């Protein structure tokens, strides 16, 4: 029987029923512009401020006014990076980042490099983890920003952000942490991270799309990169998306309240899925950190050798299973995930990549269905693969290391 199993929660999640309900009045009843001075405007502004309080509380920030709403996580990352270096231009023009960033971080920095700024991209180890000592060594006299992520968007590896934060604090450098893939799922405290800027993406923890969040420490310097009116205290021009901001606020509150239950549940499913896959399928590897404290509890990034990722994705889809892939055939630019190349994964294994990300609503019964289906899919594609034949005949060896 065909099922529908959604295992792409790191791409997006459905909104919670209470999020949806909370958003509704702000479309048709309370539609005032939050900058307006009449009653409807003030009502919207109050709703925004309530959301600010909710976000601030969820990340351990003292001042709700340090929360800036944007249109999405990508915009929050652009604002954090470009807004910081333009604000700090008089102090220097160098950025320290890593080779494993999300495109919204990497491409923001690449853009700045075309406009006279410089960047050093610190390497990651084969699990995708940055060594804080490498970050420190990359700092130059005119470094004004250290930009990295908490949990990796692709392989789920968790970075030692607190240690990097200590270095940033000691060297008096603004520190931006992209938490778009970790908020709602990992313990997040801006003070423990010693961060100066933190971004969040509510649609990845059961909030709506159309809103991103940037927290900015009082001491951090930032200028707006979108020019217009004085919304968001001059830090982000443009009319605020009130329904989405209200929904995001409810989502972040629920994420904090249900944090332990959600994370325990997804970690159990993640482990069930990986154990099932590796016991049923030969020549399959886990990309990123081992399951446990250094890995996002939702993320399972695997490579099945001798087959390609898009075929796996399409056959999963035909079995009602929604997943992602970092293989080049799935991307529109025909390049496989840069994170997979950053961890030094063999190119053919990168092509056989598939990303499962579990969520709070998945069940162990669904996971068992996925294991069963996926084992059949791999077998079917290997049956078509000339490379699998070569492996079976001993012409080529497996590239998966056995350690």
């Amino acid at each position, binding site marked *: 029987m065909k099922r529908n199993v959604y295992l792409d929660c790191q791409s997006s999640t459905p909104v919670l029923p209470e999020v949806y309900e909370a958003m509704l009045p702000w479309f048709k009843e309370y539609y005032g512009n939050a900058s307006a001075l009449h009653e409807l405007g003030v009502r919207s502004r109050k709703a925004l401020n309530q959301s600010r309080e909710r976000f601030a509380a969820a990340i351990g920030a003292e001042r709700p006014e340090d929360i800036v709403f944007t249109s999405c996580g990508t915009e929050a990352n652009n604002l954090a990076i470009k807004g910081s270096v333009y604000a700090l231009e008089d102090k220097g023009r160098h950025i320290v980042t890593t080779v494993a960033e999300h495109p919204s971080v990497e491409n923001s920095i690449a853009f700045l490099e075309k406009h006279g700024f410089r960047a050093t991209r610190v390497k990651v180890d084969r699990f995708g983890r940055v060594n804080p000592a490498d970050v420190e060594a990359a700092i130059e006299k005119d470094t004004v920003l250290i930009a990295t992520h908490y949990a990796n968007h692709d392989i789920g590896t968790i970075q030692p952000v607190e240690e990097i934060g200590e270095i940033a604090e000691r060297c008096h450098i603004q520190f931006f942490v992209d938490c778009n893939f970790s908020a709602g799922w990992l313990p997040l405290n801006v003070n423990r991270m010693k961060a100066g800027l933190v971004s969040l993406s509510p649609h990845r923890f059961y909030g709506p799309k159309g809103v991103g969040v940037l927290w900015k420490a009082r001491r951090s310097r930032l200028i707006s990169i979108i020019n217009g009116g004085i919304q968001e205290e001059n830090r982000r021009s443009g009319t605020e998306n009130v329904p989405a901001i209200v929904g995001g606020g409810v989502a972040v509150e629920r994420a904090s309240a249900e944090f332990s239950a959600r994370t325990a549940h997804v970690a159990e499913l993640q482990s069930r899925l990986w154990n099932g896959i590796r016991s049923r399928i030969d020549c399959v590897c886990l990309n990123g950190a081992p399951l446990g404290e250094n890995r996002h509890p939702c993320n399972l990034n695997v490579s099945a050798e001798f087959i390609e990722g898009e075929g796996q994705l*399409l*056959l999963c889809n035909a079995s*009602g299973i929604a997943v992602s892939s970092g*293989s*080049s055939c799935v991307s529109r630019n*025909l390049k496989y995930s840069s994170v997979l190349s950053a961890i030094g994964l063999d190119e053919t294994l990168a092509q056989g990549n598939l990303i499962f990300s579990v969520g709070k609503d998945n069940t162990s019964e669904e996971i068992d269905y996925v294991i069963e289906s996926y084992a059949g899919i791999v077998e079917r594609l290997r049956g*078509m*693969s*000339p*490379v699998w034949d070569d492996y079976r005949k001993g012409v080529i060896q497996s590239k998966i290391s056995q350690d």
Partner: protein
Amino acid sequence: MSEENSLYNPIVMDHFLNPRNMGDLDDADGIGEVGAAACGDIMKISLKIDDNGRISDAKFKTFGCGSAIASSSMATELVKGKTIEEALQLSNKNVVDALGGLPPVKIHCSVLAEEAIKAALDDYLKRHPEMASRVAAAEAAKEKKA
């Protein structure tokens, strides 16, 4: 999965989900393998060619995405029953057209299918010099005519 929400058109999906001529030919007369796993596609085409130079059977094995598998499946369908001369004329566009179109970024899959067919034919012609001269003579005659 509804058709209108699919990445590929129904013909491509059909050839991906129900590939024609998948497998190997134990007594193949010509085998062509093109592509590289690092680029995401490897296609292997096996041909059985009779004494009159007609392709009596064709099989494929492919490491690659949905459109690579569909392109190989369609290419083998298109060359079955054709003479060597006819099969050498197969272009990637014939494969794309027969599939009812491919997304622009996937056109290279059809190019690979054309190359795999040609590599299999070349392999056969290397093993059969007499047929190679016949094909070359026919080509020359055609060019003269043109």
